């Protein structure tokens, strides 16, 4: 069980049990859908962006503990960040979980998100951890538009 704890850290299990920001945002102006065809996991990401700064972030959907905790912690951590800072966080997170960077080299950049470092030892689960982040990048790069419930 000890090596499993490296993946399923207490903070990850906690975010899985009680995901933060698990809601739609009234008046969100960025929205993206994430889908992992391998496992059928789906994720809707909502952002409120004001003058280039993410003032609110939330998600809905279904997925495994890793993908849910990742979305939960990501939405917490991008609030207050500029769109460019969010893009940079995507790069760092992606490099960390794919094993291409040492998170301990710059621990301050990812902060609490470093708990996902263990994912790099589980190649089949990298997509679970990065689904929310890929969805974030697509929302960040999208044109400003009001999310329409009619389009759902």
């Amino acid at each position, binding site marked *: 069980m000890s090596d499993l704890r490296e993946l399923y850290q207490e903070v990850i299990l906690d975010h899985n049990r009680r995901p933060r920001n698990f809601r739609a945002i009234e008046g969100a102006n960025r929205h993206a859908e994430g889908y992992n065809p*391998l496992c*059928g996991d*789906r994720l809707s990401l909502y952002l409120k962006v004001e003058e280039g700064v993410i003032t609110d972030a939330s998600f809905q959907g279904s997925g495994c503990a890793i993908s849910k905790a990742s979305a939960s912690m990501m939405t917490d951590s991008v609030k207050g960040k500029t769109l460019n800072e969010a893009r940079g966080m995507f790069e760092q997170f992606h490099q960390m979980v794919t094993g291409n960077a040492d998170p301990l080299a710059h621990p301050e950049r990812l902060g609490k998100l470093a708990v996902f470092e263990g994912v790099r030892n589980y190649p089949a689960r990298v997509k679970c951890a990065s689904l929310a982040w890929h969805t974030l990048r697509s929302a960040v790069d999208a044109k400003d538009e009001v999310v329409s419930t009619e389009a759902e």
Partner: protein
Amino acid sequence: MTSIASIAAPPRAGFDVRRIREDFPILRQTVHGKPLVYLDNAATTQKPRAVLDALMAYYSEDNANVHRGVHLLSERATQAFEDARATVQRFINAASTREIVFTRNATEAVNLVAQTFGRTRLGPGDEVVISAMEHHSNIVPWQMVCEDKGASLRVIPITDEGALQLEEYERLLGSHTRLVSIVHLSNVLGTINPAQQMIATAHRHGVPVLIDGSQAAHHMTVDVQALDADFYVFTGHKLYGPTGIGVLYGKERLLEELPPYQGGGDMIKSVTFEKTTYNALPYKFEAGTPNIAGAVGLAAAVDYVTAIGMGAVTAHERDLLAYGTAALSGVPGLTLIGTAPEKASVLSFVMDGVHPHDIGTIVDREGVAIRTGHHCAQPLMQRLGIAATARASLALYNTREEIDALVAALHKVRELFT
């Protein structure tokens, strides 16, 4: 769990699972420091030494191209390839080797029929009947040809337990129905569909039937003549054979009427730039150099299973399924998916508050290999209202102790997630 674990396995004359396990070199290993418990047999089965030896012997001693050379090796390779066809013919009790077409896999066999039958027999307003529990490989090929031809798919619904609704099936059959294509044994639910009865029903309406036997051929005796199947497809790698070899059985009369699938060498009788005449069955459907070693390996697998006896295999797996069903039902928060009265070899389940992917990762660390996800049956997942299941699937070399190992690993899942 102790009460279940303490039930002694009934002795079965002639079937010694310990000895059988010794035939499978891959099963001897440990993964993550634990003995490998391989319960992903619906995805692919492991290969006995007899199959590995046959592949090695073919490439070491007989390798040449088939059906062309006059030299000795080509004659031996051709003989081995055609002997393999005869072995498959006897295995499913086909009337003739002309009815056995080698393909890459079951998917290619379905596509072959969809393209050749669909191209010549489907038109606007026509219908192909499939079921709600089909693998994508028995959905998408029909969708593609239906789209081309202006035909449409009709879907037999299932009960919540995972059995086909046969009254609805009969209602779907009508003057527009051109073909029925259904799975024999569901890869997600384990349901065994009443193929013989369903074929008889379709035939009363003058409709031919394709049976997808990918999951059935290694768990039960298949007799295509007793079934009266018009087409029957299965794959070698789930039948303890190599990957890259599959089988299409088709009634000779039907195969004769169908146009070729792919063009190329071996499928022709004569070629000029003006006109090509096609080869006789089954070569008409086997363009290009086939997977000769694959066919040889498949025949070795069939011989291996036949020597053990399909009846003994079915009985052993039925015992394991009953044991596994009872054992899994005792895991708190676990729900079995697929509880049809007639089922075999598959234990699909979900657990409260734990996603199947997490289950898969955790039990893997205990050495237990299972499949998690939608199992290439997304419409079935939608029907069941779930995104995914965890699936343990059985083969002739599995034991009660391995089910116990799965159950113990699932208790660790519970421990971690509560």
